Structure formats: structure tokens, C-alpha cells
């Protein structure tokens, strides 16, 4: 029985935590927000230099050739420090899709460049203010050229490539586009401007098919199931940081002659943060196992981790503001940085409702009246 990370993975995590702290990742996140930049390029270059963009890329493409578990511990630290870098879109979504679904030719071209930082990728899916599904993707493909509008695309302003979800002849296609031709990229204001989001207007933009035509939505679902685990780790990292912040403030702040952390109203709030975080963390550990072993339980484990991690980060971030009282509502305190990021991560690959629905769908499929889901 070993539902825990290995000593090597834990030291990688410690190293990541120390690095992001030394580099003042949180302060950099605030600066990106204040200055309305897309990312912190300096921090991103250092992360590339550490090899993190190539954690999962095989050594023959210059990557580190490590597993998903290594990616999980890095994700937790990026979440804890609110790192303002395009890691989730380029690594969890784009790189994973290329590794798993692209042709050898594309892999040979892109994977070494993703390691070196020459390439940055993202995934473009949303088109309008409705939850995207296989039924409402309208971006058209004609002779391998795509046209139409994508919105809320993370990191498109700094990305060199995008995987674009399109409506093909056989159904939904996933297509690879270089973003240096026939497309117009505009920055969009979001609830968390420490992470840049963009609209992309494609106009006869040249694209390549990834995977089988018509199977785009299945690929997206698979990539999302995997990414849900990694986003989950970012979320528990952020939730832990928000809880730590609330805890430290509750011990220092005095009201009516005593530390506010000695009042049960505050204690129980913080205990509830700990409870939600612990459930999320344990579910994320299990999902990390399912991800790293390509288990058939991935869909269920990922949805479970995603739902509980989203709930934990939302709760910890919002109640961290509440614990800080009026100070928590100021721009000066960091509370709002966590509040913003918790909501951003909570919708980035689909909202709570989407993942709760996925979870129950899997449960419905796997249970009949006589067989129970495994608990």
C-alpha cells in the first residue's frame, strides 16, 4: 500500500517550492495583474531552463522523460505560488495532446521546441458564452484552412501554436495551427488578469489534422480527464496557501482583546477549509495514481479529484478573504489573488457543474442495480 509520492518526487516538489518562493512568484503574479501583461516572461524562461516543460516529453525529443506524478507535484507548487506562466495550457493541454495524438513528424518538429521554450502551445475550444459541447462547435474547416472565432483562449498572446477544436466533415476535428499566420489575437479582460486570455479570429488559417478526423471531441475529453488531475493539484496547492494565509492572520489579528483565531466562528471556518482540502488532496492522490498508470478508472478518479479540488479552492479562497475582514477586500492584501485564481482554475477546463455531471455519468454507467461503484 503506497498512496503517496516517492522520495524523489517529494524532493522535486521541495525544489519547486523553494525556487518559486525565491523568485517571488506571488509578487510576480500581482505585477502581471497590475501591469496587464500576458505572463511573467522571466519566470517562464527560468521554468523552461529547469526542464519543467519537458517533464513528460521523451528523452529522444530532449525532454526529461519522467511521468505524470512528477508533473503533479510541480502543478501543486505552481498553484500554491499562483505562478503567472502559461504552464497549464502549454504543458497539461497542448504538450499532452501532441505526445498522445500527433504524428511522428509533428512530434519531431514540436516536442524539442516545447522543451526549449521556442514553442508555447494552447488549446482553443470556446466560441460563445455557452458551455462548449460537440453540438455547438461551429468553427469551420475548408481545405485544411480554418475560419471563425475562438474566445477565452488561455495564453494565446504568447503561444506559437494552438490546437483548435473545429467542426469538420466527419464531426469534431482537432487541428494544429501556427499562430503566426492569418489570425488576429486580441487580449480579453478576465476575472484574473494574472493569467492572460485572448480571442483568436481565424481567417483561412492553415491547419493540420491531429488524430483521426471526427474524433476531436473524444480526444478533448481524454485530454481534459488527464488535465483535470493536474489542474486539481494546482487547486489544492492554491487552497493550502489560502488556508495557511488565513491561519497566520487569525493568530496575529486581535479583536476584543484576543486573537480572532481563538473564536470558534473562525476556528470552525478554518477547520472546514482543512476538511475540504483534505478530501480534495486524498482524491487527487488517487487520481494521480489513475493518471500515472493509465487506469480505466481515470475518468471517475479525475472527475472526483476535479470536483473536490474546485470546491476546496473556492471555499478556502473565499473564506480567506472573510477571515481577513476589511483588509481582505483591499487590493493591497494578497487574498484577492487567490480568490481570482480559484475561480479562473475552476472554469478553465469546465465548471463545477460540468465535472459533477461527468462524475455522475460515469457512476451511472458503471452501476446497475446489483453492482455498486467501488468505494
Amino acid at each position, binding site marked *: *500500500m*503506497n*498512496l*503517496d*509520492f516517492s522520495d524523489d518526487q517529494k524532493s522535486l516538489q521541495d525544489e519547486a517550492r523553494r525556487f518559486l518562493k525565491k523568485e517571488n512568484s506571488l509578487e510576480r503574479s500581482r505585477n502581471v495583474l497590475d501591469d496587464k501583461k500576458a505572463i511573467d516572461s522571466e519566470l517562464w524562461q527560468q521554468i523552461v531552463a529547469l526542464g519543467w516543460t519537458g517533464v513528460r516529453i521523451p528523452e529522444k525529443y530532449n525532454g526529461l522523460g519522467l511521468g505524470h*506524478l512528477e508533473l503533479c507535484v510541480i502543478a501543486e507548487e505552481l498553484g500554491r505560488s499562483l505562478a503567472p506562466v502559461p504552464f497549464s495550457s502549454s504543458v497539461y493541454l497542448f504538450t499532452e495532446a501532441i505526445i498522445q495524438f500527433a504524428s511522428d513528424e509533428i512530434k519531431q518538429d514540436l516536442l524539442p521546441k516545447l522543451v526549449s521554450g521556442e514553442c508555447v502551445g494552447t488549446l482553443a475550444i470556446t466560441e460563445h458564452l455557452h458551455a462548449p459541447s460537440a453540438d455547438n462547435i461551429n468553427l469551420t474547416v475548408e481545405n485544411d484552412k480554418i475560419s471563425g472565432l475562438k474566445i477565452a483562449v488561455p495564453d494565446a498572446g504568447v503561444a506559437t501554436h494552438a490546437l483548435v477544436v473545429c467542426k469538420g466533415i466527419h464531426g469534431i476535428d482537432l487541428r494544429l495551427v501556427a499562430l503566426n499566420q492569418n489570425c488576429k489575437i486580441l487580449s480579453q479582460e478576465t476575472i484574473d488578469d494574472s493569467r492572460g486570455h485572448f480571442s483568436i479570429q481565424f481567417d483561412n488559417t492553415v491547419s493540420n489534422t491531429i488524430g483521426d478526423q471526427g474524433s476531436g471531441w473524444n480526444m478533448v475529453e481524454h485530454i481534459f480527464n488527464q488535465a483535470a488531475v493536474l489542474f486539481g493539484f494546482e487547486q489544492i496547492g492554491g487552497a493550502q496557501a489560502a*488556508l495557511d494565509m488565513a*491561519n497566520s492572520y*487569525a*493568530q496575529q489579528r486581535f479583536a476584543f482583546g*484576543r*486573537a480572532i*483565531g*481563538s*473564536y*470558534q466562528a*473562525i*476556528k*470552525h471556518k*478554518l*477547520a*472546514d477549509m*482543512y*476538511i475540504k482540502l*483534505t*478530501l*480534495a*488532496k*486524498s*482524491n487527487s*492522490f*488517487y487520481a*494521480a*495514481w489513475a493518471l*500515472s*498508470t493509465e487506469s480505466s478508472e481515470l475518468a471517475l478518479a479525475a472527475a*472526483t479529484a476535479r*470536483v*473536490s479540488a474546485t*470546491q476546496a479552492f473556492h471555499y478556502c479562497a473565499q473564506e480567506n478573504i472573510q477571515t481577513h475582514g476589511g483588509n481582505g477586500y483591499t487590493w493591497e492584501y494578497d487574498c484577492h489573488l487567490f480568490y481570482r485564481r480559484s475561480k479562473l482554475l475552476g472554469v478553465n477546463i469546465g465548471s463545477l*457543474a460540468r*465535472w*459533477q*455531471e461527468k*462524475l*455522475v455519468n460515469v*457512476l*451511472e454507467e458503471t*452501476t446497475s*442495480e446489483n453492482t*455498486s*461503484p467501488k*468505494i
Partner: protein
Amino acid sequence: MDFNDTPQQAKFRAKCRHWLSENAQYNASIGNDNSHKTLSTEDYVARARTWQKKKFDAGWAMLHWPECFGGMAASPIERIIWEQEESLFSVPRGVYEIGLGMAGPVMMQYASDEQKARYLPPMAAGEEIWCQLFSEPSAGSDVAGLRSKAVKDGDDWIINGQKVWTSGAHFCDYGIIVVRHDANVDKHAGMTFFFIDMKSTGIDIKPIKQITGGSSFNEVYFNDVRVPDSQRLGAVGDGWRVAITTLMNERLAVGDATGADVEEALVWAKKQDNQGQLMIKNTAVRTSIADWYCQASGLKNTKLRTMSALSKGETPGPEASITKVVSANKLQAIGNFGIDSLDMAGMLKTNDSNIHEFHDAWLGSAGLRIAGGTDEILRNIIAERVLGLPQDPRADKGVAFKDIPSGN
């Protein structure tokens, strides 16, 4: 990460499974025994007694105890493996847990060598059943507020007062008890701990009728009950320290609130309709099921993390402290769901075993949110011991016990 036993653990698991297969009925689908619902208390205790003796004779009863008391000096992970395996068999439960889980460790730590030799083996063998006497009418969450008095009389102590919520007192042979020997000193300094013969003159036991209609707890009255000083555990005035050891063990023993869980809710929602639509099609129901699944799975995986630490010979983190708060509240929510699913017929008691289970969950959970530490006390413990938040200012510190405000 993996869920495999080490070769040594696998060998031990096989040994457990082998013995259990030869001595009990395998029942993986139920995993527990419902005979306590059909048998009388006497018959059920007798059944539990037989099973306990069988385990003792083979060394399994208290396998983590040293061999001289009937154990096999098993490691913490081996103990968990045994419990996992035993839970797959249809065997009686709920008679010995408190005695073995709370009285056992305290006797092991504080009794004399002669007493250990006299009492531990029959305790493990199930020949003598033990109970715990801490709570009092005016000492619930604040156990240290207890008032039962012990007065020294020669080589004996004379105990007067009342205990409450004593599980199984009516069929127990011995009990561990903490009482106040001095009300003129600080609250926590005035207590002393004993073990007592439950058949002593002056002990009167009255069952408490619970909101379920059942009676698993008792009030226990003490009228000039004599206890030899030799049955004192720990020094005079050390009662609280000794009690804390056992309360820690209770928290480990209480654990999960069992009963209708997300599986039952899901299976039910798939067949029960409400206003022309299956419950499972209802978004509110789906959201609840997703949340209960996340909680149930979160608790299961938390347990696996604790086991992983034990398996590596490490001390587990505090994560298991969330178990009862989460499971008891989930049980109550699922009970509510089941009853509400019947809409205007929801109040009816029926013979349907599913509905019965929802009723049990709804009533039972109200007690489980209190037993072994209320939701509120458990949140205080998480806040103070895990998160390191300061204690509440207290009106009972630095004051003689007799001067502490009591509201009456």
C-alpha cells in the same frame, strides 16, 4: 504509487484470509453481520463471545498485543490488514470495540503486572466485557467537568454519582472510570482514574431509550460503591492525563459513521421516480450524489494515505481527524434524501429494506454527529491541534473546581 502489499504483508494477509475462511462465513457483498437486528441482546452477546474466544485461541483477538497476553505482537499495518480481512466476513461486531479499544490500552499502560496478567487475557478472550464510564449529565463535551465523587476510606475509595452514555453497561463485567477526588483544586488536577467491577454493590444500571427507540446506552448510578485503591490507574490527581490517553483511542475507534452511503442513494435514485421522472434525472439529486461520492471517496483515500504511512513505518499525519465529521453529516444528508424521495409518503415506515435503511440513517446520524466528540468539538480539535489556533479563553482555568460557574 501502488496499492500492493509488500511480499511480507501479502503473506500476512494470506494467513489472515486462510484462518478466517476456515472459521467464518465469507460475505464480501455485505461485509457485515446484521444478526444484531434479529437476535436478542443476550443471544447476540453470546454469539459475539463465541467468535471472540475463537479469535483469541488462535492469537487474532488482540493481535498487536504481546504474546504473553494472547496476542502475536503484530505491527500497526498488520493490524489493519487483519481488520480489512475480517470485515469481509460475516461476524458479529459492536460488543467488544469499546472495551478492547479503550480499556485495553489504558490497562496495558497503567495496571500492575499482576493485574495485567489477571485481566488482559480474559478481556481479549471476550470472557470479560469492559465498558467506559466518563460522561456525566453535566459533563458531555466538557468531560473534565465531571462531578462523581471518590472519597478515600482506608484502603478503599467510596464512589458516589452518576455516569451516562455508557455503551453496553448492562452486559459488562468491568469498567474504567474517572471521578473527582478533590473539588477544591483546579478542575483538571482533581480527578483520579480506576477500574471497577460492574457487579459491585451500589451500582444501578438504567437503559436510555434513544430517538431510534433502541437502547444501546445506559445511565449508571453509583451509591457508596467501594473500590480498592489497588484498582487505581495512575497517581491520585492524574485522572485527566489517563483519560486523555483513552479519549485519543476512542477517536480512532469511532471512525466512520456506517449506514446508507452514496451507493445506496445512487441505486435508489435510478429506480425511484418523482413526479413522472426518475430521481437520477433531477439535477439537484445528481449534484448531491456527486458531492457524496467525492466525500466517500475522499475519506476512503484519506484512509489509504494513513495506511501508506503506517506501511512505511512512518507516523500518519492528522488527516484522519476529518473522518467522523464528514461521514456522519453525509449519512444524515443521505437519510434526508431517501425519505424526501418518497415525497408525501416519506413519513411512512415500511418493510422495504432500502427505505428502512434511509430511516435508520436519518435517525442514527443525529446521534453519530454527537457520539465520540460532537461536530463542534471535533472542529475545535482540528483547529487547535492540527492548525495550531489558540484555545478559547476559559472561565474554568485557575479556579477551584467547586467555584466554576455551572449554571445551576
